[in-house]
């Protein structure tokens, strides 16, 4: 028990990301509950008996604001008449706390089936979280969830811990945000923290490639499969033959359709797109084998060079693009350079020798290799720690929280209910440095 310093007090760890909310017991190696952060809701409370054919849906959780929320596995992905979707996070920060707390409650109570008032809870936050936000989170935990103890930890630090490091340069590529965080002795160096909504740009670029017509093909329709009644097999590159579900089409909200089309693009990126390991090179890109992909409409095609231009957006922006858009998110190398420049010259070598690559976005094909070749160009001794296990890569922040909250020495850091009652919100800033 004392050998590895662990002492489990059945704490829960909740990690809220842009794409998914992860919850599980501290000390586990995988979160027990992973649900999409996006939720569906009806703007006005519909008549439960008439409008909802699937009344027995257990994932519906009635909350305030006089609306019905659909969360979890059968939440937003299921087509419902007039269902809007929304995401409580904006740029990685919790923007709308009401659905966020509902999501956490759903994960803890409905999926993990445990009572939050019995367990200390550790929640994660991105490094650029605001003090007001974390205090609000503490308030939700203590007032709504009635937790006995609470702690809020930084995802950057937790990612470093998950990699077994106290000092590291954490490169975290999520669904909406890419960040570079220097960690020293378990503390974020705030001056060196940089982040940008780069993944959104990559996504937009991919969508642009698919939706816009080019000399080889027309623009691709990204209808989700829920809206397609039937389809027929067609030749490669031939126009798709399918019929839409007209009954659903008019009752589909824009937000849901947009969100689902984004999922289709994401799907395409994950299976087809990649990045060249040694920087952009037309010959190399042309020499790579093309890949076939079929969309829900039945349209299928081979994607060759363009699939590599998607990943290139992570690392390099063309001067025309930069000139046309002054607020372009910074590329990964630019972020790293900026972060290191803000650090002490002595620290730079240490950090570059302890790079931790994490986040689901970093699973982009060829990302790790490209990053190491980019770093090797400017630093002599680079060592990148990137777990090969996708679970560890995607849920690194949760994993670090699981490690931290099961340590015997950590239990003195919990903010107890008593302390919360005594000191109020100030204690959060004092304790969670």
């Amino acid at each position, binding site marked *: 028990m004392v050998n590895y310093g662990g002492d489990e007090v059945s704490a829960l760890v909740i990690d809220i990301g842009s794409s998914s909310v992860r919850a599980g017991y501290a000390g586990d190696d995988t979160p027990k509950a992973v649900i999409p952060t996006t939720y569906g809701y009806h703007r006005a409370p519909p008549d439960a008996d008439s409008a909802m054919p699937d009344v027995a849906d257990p994932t519906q959780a009635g909350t305030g604001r006089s609306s019905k929320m659909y969360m979890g596995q059968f939440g937003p992905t299921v087509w419902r008449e007039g269902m809007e979707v929304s995401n409580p996070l904006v740029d990685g920060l919790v923007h709308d706390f009401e659905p966020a707390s509902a999501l956490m409650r759903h994960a803890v109570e409905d999926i993990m089936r445990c009572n939050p008032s019995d367990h*200390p809870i550790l929640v994660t936050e991105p490094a650029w979280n605001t003090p007001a936000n974390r205090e609000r989170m503490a308030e939700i935990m203590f007032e709504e969830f009635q937790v006995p103890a609470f702690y809020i930890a930084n995802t950057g630090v937790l990612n470093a811990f998950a990699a077994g490091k106290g000092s590291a340069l954490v490169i975290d590529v999520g669904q909406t945000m890419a960040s570079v965080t220097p960690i020293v*002795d378990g503390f974020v160096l705030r001056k060196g923290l940089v982040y940008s909504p780069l993944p959104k740009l990559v996504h937009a670029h991919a969508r642009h490639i698919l939706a816009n017509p080019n000399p080889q093909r027309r623009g691709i329709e990204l209808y989700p499969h829920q809206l397609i009644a039937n389809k027929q097999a067609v030749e490669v590159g031939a126009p798709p033959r399918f019929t839409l579900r007209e009954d659903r089409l008019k009752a589909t909200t824009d937000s849901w359709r947009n969100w689902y089309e984004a999922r289709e693009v994401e799907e395409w990126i994950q299976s087809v797109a990649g990045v060249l390991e040694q920087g952009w090179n037309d010959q190399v890109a042309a020499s790579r084998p093309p890949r076939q992909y079929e969309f829900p409409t039945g349209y299928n095609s081979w994607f060759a060079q363009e699939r590599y231009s998607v990943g290139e957006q992570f690392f390099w922006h063309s001067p025309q693009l930069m000139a046309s858009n002054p607020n372009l998110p910074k590329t990964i190398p630019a972020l790293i350079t900026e972060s290191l420049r803000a650090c002490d010259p002595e620290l730079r070598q240490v950090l570059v020798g302890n790079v931790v690559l994490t986040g689901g976005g970093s699973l982009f094909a060829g990302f790790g290799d490209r990053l190491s070749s980019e770093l090797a160009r400017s630093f002599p001794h680079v060592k990148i720690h990137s777990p090969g296990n996708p679970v560890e890569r995607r849920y690194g922040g949760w994993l670090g929280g699981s490690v931290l909250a099961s340590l015997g020495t950590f239990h003195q850091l919990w903010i107890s209910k008593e302390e919360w009652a005594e000191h109020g919100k100030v204690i959060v800033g004092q304790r969670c440095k």
Partner: protein
Amino acid sequence: MASSSEVRAILDLPSSSLSATPSLPQKKSSAPSARKPDGISRELFSLIGPSSTTLVAQLAKPRLKQKPNLGAGSKIKWEWRPFKNGARTDSLQLNHWTKASADPDAEYPFAKYNVQRPTHTYSQDEYTRHLEDPEWSKEETDYLMDIVNEYDTRWYVVYDRYDYPGGVPRSMEDIKDRYCSVCRKLIRNRPWAGDENSKNALLSSYSFDKEREVLRKRYVASLENRTPEQIAEEEALYMEIKRLEQNERRFKRERDDLLRTIAGIESGLPDVVEDEMHLTGVFSSSDPKRSKKKGGGADVLDSPSTPLISTPRERPRASLPPKNSAYDLQHCITRTEPPAAATSATKAAHQPAYLRSFKLPFPKAAIAQKVTQSLAELGVSHTRLVMPTQANVALLEGLLDATASLVDTKKVVDKVEFDIQVLKNRLGMQGAAKTEETDGGMDGMDVDDGNDADGDADGDGEGEDGRAQSVVSTRSARSRKHNRRSLSISSVDTSATVSTRAGTKRQRRS
């Protein structure tokens, strides 16, 4: 014959009350200490006796690694139990699993890791007296001390979080310098309970050289800010330097080689490799004559102790500077002259350093046994010296020389005595046959070889010296060889040898 008590012991019967009582306590005491191990018969074990613990240990059966006892044995009861953490200030009670046997009031095992650094605080009075600094207000100093303690002097973090409202921007060196100087002044100006050393150690732990640190940081930064061209240039320069160094080294080596060839050992160059080669050469050459031939100074190499025991005639060397000799005397250094400066600087001519005890004098092989024997009579062993100091080795050498000459002398004496004996006998015989052969000695000598049969006896008898001379000349080869063998033997010996041989010859004939 087994006694009744032994039989009882074998059969594991309770001993009869009367006979066994005296022996019983004895048995009991010995029983636990010497138990019969497995794998040995009882009879054999009783022969070994009680005091054979090592044997018992060896006879123990080899055991396989113990199998893990996976829950088959005693059950351990665990409890979900609330605990209090001593490192916390509040009354938070968390629960964890503990063994039911564990002490519920025991302190939380992880609380001991909550160590706090000693913090330095100061009063307003102390601040005004010692800590005033034009660049720092008291409020900012307070803030600094707080934040440094909060982050446990992790300077990078302290610097990162340092944000004094309305203060000037501070560099990490500023912060460190101020903190260290405050701590130093506080330690210095307060009464110190411990000794001076611990105070100094503590003070030195707070020493901080700001200028140097800034300079160092600047170097590090400039090192990092090199452009690729600069790095390439630096690389090229480095290669150039390496090349030049290599060239220089080659020049030096060639120059040394040249010097060695021309000036030999006099060049004063360290020549470690050749030394070693020489050493092995000496030790491998079993034949002393060979090394004698090789080395120009035959006497030096022949008696191995000479280089160390420098004889007086060797000592005043012209080549030794006077300063050196005084120095040597002071430091008990004995210099040995390199053998025969005239010889060329071959490897063999060079005398390397060696241990004195390696080269103890050794008697000549021919008489070694006799010398050893006679030394043994004195109770001296010449092969081993307890203290092979220079003086002792010199004494030993003298002793060996004296013993050798004694042995030689004794040999001569023996021979002479024998000769005398033989001559006396012959004299007696001659006295009986002393008739007409008093003349014709010179004639007989001429035909010595021819008429050996008759001229031998009379030749021997009549002229002591002349006759002997002739014999020497005729049997030159043999006698010269003998001569060579023992240089120290005098002319007496020669004549004696000759006469002995004459004697034997005659005996052979007759």
